[in-house]
């Protein structure tokens, strides 16, 4: 068993990269992931990526915010310390709504920023996980897991045939951050 972990095909053109994905899929070679410097239309469907659950997370973060805001206002201004504000009853729901609305948005935004950092490993002090630095610049990268797919020369051949400018064999999954 070689100690090659990942094979990266580096393309200069998105159409050639899409072609490369097709080639690999036709030969039943599992693709680990694809890295591109820009969004490419229809790539999720081609790679069979499941629909994002971000919206569900956003909904629950938002609901948490609404409930927290309501609990905070209710406990402070109705239960704990009643104030006479403009002659209104202590439990005046219309007054609560702007705060509940704002806290909903705040919790939703915090939750989504947090989940973004968690899923991209971008916490402060952590090295970002990058397989090929040029995927953030001008190259379209297809990454294939070398341990799962045995025939490396066939993968190289397929990637080259599809128009890869460069094929790299990496012994580490992520390059260190320079």
């Amino acid at each position, binding site marked *: 068993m070689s100690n090659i972990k990942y094979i990266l095909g580096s393309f200069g053109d998105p159409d050639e990269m899409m072609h490369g994905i097709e080639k690999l899929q036709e030969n039943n070679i599992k693709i680990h992931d694809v890295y591109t410097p820009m969004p490419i*239309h*229809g790539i999720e469907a081609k790679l069979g990526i499941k629909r994002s659950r971000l*919206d569900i997370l956003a*909904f629950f973060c938002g609901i948490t915010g609404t409930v927290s805001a309501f609990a905070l206002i209710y406990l402070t201004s109705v239960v704990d310390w009643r104030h006479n504000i*403009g*002659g*209104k009853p202590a439990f005046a729901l*219309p*007054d609560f*709504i*702007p705060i509940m609305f704002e806290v909903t948005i705040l919790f939703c935004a915090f939750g989504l920023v947090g989940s973004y950092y968690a899923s991209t490993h971008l916490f402060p002090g952590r090295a970002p996980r990058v397989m090929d630095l040029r995927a953030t610049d001008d190259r379209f990268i297809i990454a294939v897991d070398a341990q799962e797919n045995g025939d490396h020369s066939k993968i190289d051949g397929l990637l080259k045939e599809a128009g890869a400018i460069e094929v790299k064999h990496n012994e580490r999954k992520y390059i260190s951050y320079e």
Partner: protein
Amino acid sequence: MGTHNYNFNEQFEFTGKAKTLSIAAIVIGIASIAYGFSDHGLHERTFANLLLMAYYFACVCMSGAFFLAVQFVAQAGWSASILRVPQAMARTLPIAVVILIAVIGLGLYTHNLYHHWNAPGLTDPSSANYDKLIDGKSAFLNVPFFLGRQVVFLSIYSFFALLLSKLSTNEDLEGGLNSYTKSFKYSCIFLVIYGFTTPIFAFDTVMSLEAHWFSTMFGWYNFAAMWVSSLATIAVIIILLRKAGYMQWVNNSHLHNLGQFIFGFSIFWTYVWFAQFMLIYYANMPEETVYFYKRFEFYKFWFFLNLVMNFLAPVLLLMDRDNKRQENIMLGVCIIVLCGHWVDYYQMIMPGTVESHNGFGIIEIGTAIGFVGLFTFTVLSSLSKKPLIAKNHPFLQESLNHHL
């Protein structure tokens, strides 16, 4: 890029069931208005309903022109293949304008529709009816200036509506970018005029029914209502055309975009509604709270129904991505929103005109059916005059390949 085999000369044929039903609806409308005028006690209620529906009709059509202008100014590509529907609505605007001005004019001169500011002696200090507040507003709220504003604003909207539609016809005939750049330029001018004048238009037509009260949010509140109801109308027309076998190039991504628009502007409507309500509630000043006092005392059911239909229903039903992409759910939500804005206008107009003598019966339902029939008849007959797609629109390919 896929290849398409769509017929770009496809034209809508306005015959059969749609035509029969819309004419039947117009007849029902005329019959119920005639019934309303046959009983002297019901005159004012009939006029209030006529004003409601004429205002709704004009607002939906002028927001069709606004939709066109927004698409041009944003240089939006997705909508290029559906522009003929709002164009048909925009071309109907002159008819709606004539009806609205006729209703306002007749209401003003024969039935004192705007009796809060237009009654004998209100501005005469020696009269028993003298009203200091109305006298102070009389430089703005007097009959010639009021009617003049209506005519000027609505003529400007109609002019731009017809112009944008005309430029699209020229584009069909000549091709090239000339019409598009002109549309862009006139859309920019139109949006500036529209943005500044629609609040005044809403102040005049609806808010002055209760001339002692005012709210600076009222214009945007009405703008949100007319814009979201127009978007829902566009979606309904497109879905029904698709069901009848036309416009097969419209895919569920176009529906998704319209759904997002309706979802977003329903929330915007609620936001403006609540901003208006909240400040008045919080400040609790008698001259302002009188507006909501009337609605809460005599119109409680409508008051809450309004929020359920225009906020809860679209928000809950359109939040999910898959729902926006399904024809039947979209159709249902759009119809709820359209009925909801009828309720919205109902509780804007009725407390200022018929006070607590409101009702919901033959006059309300019949007038609404009549105007829906009139709208369907006029919009569909203007839709049938042009091909259903603007074949030389520069962004047409983008729209045909639209995918979200």
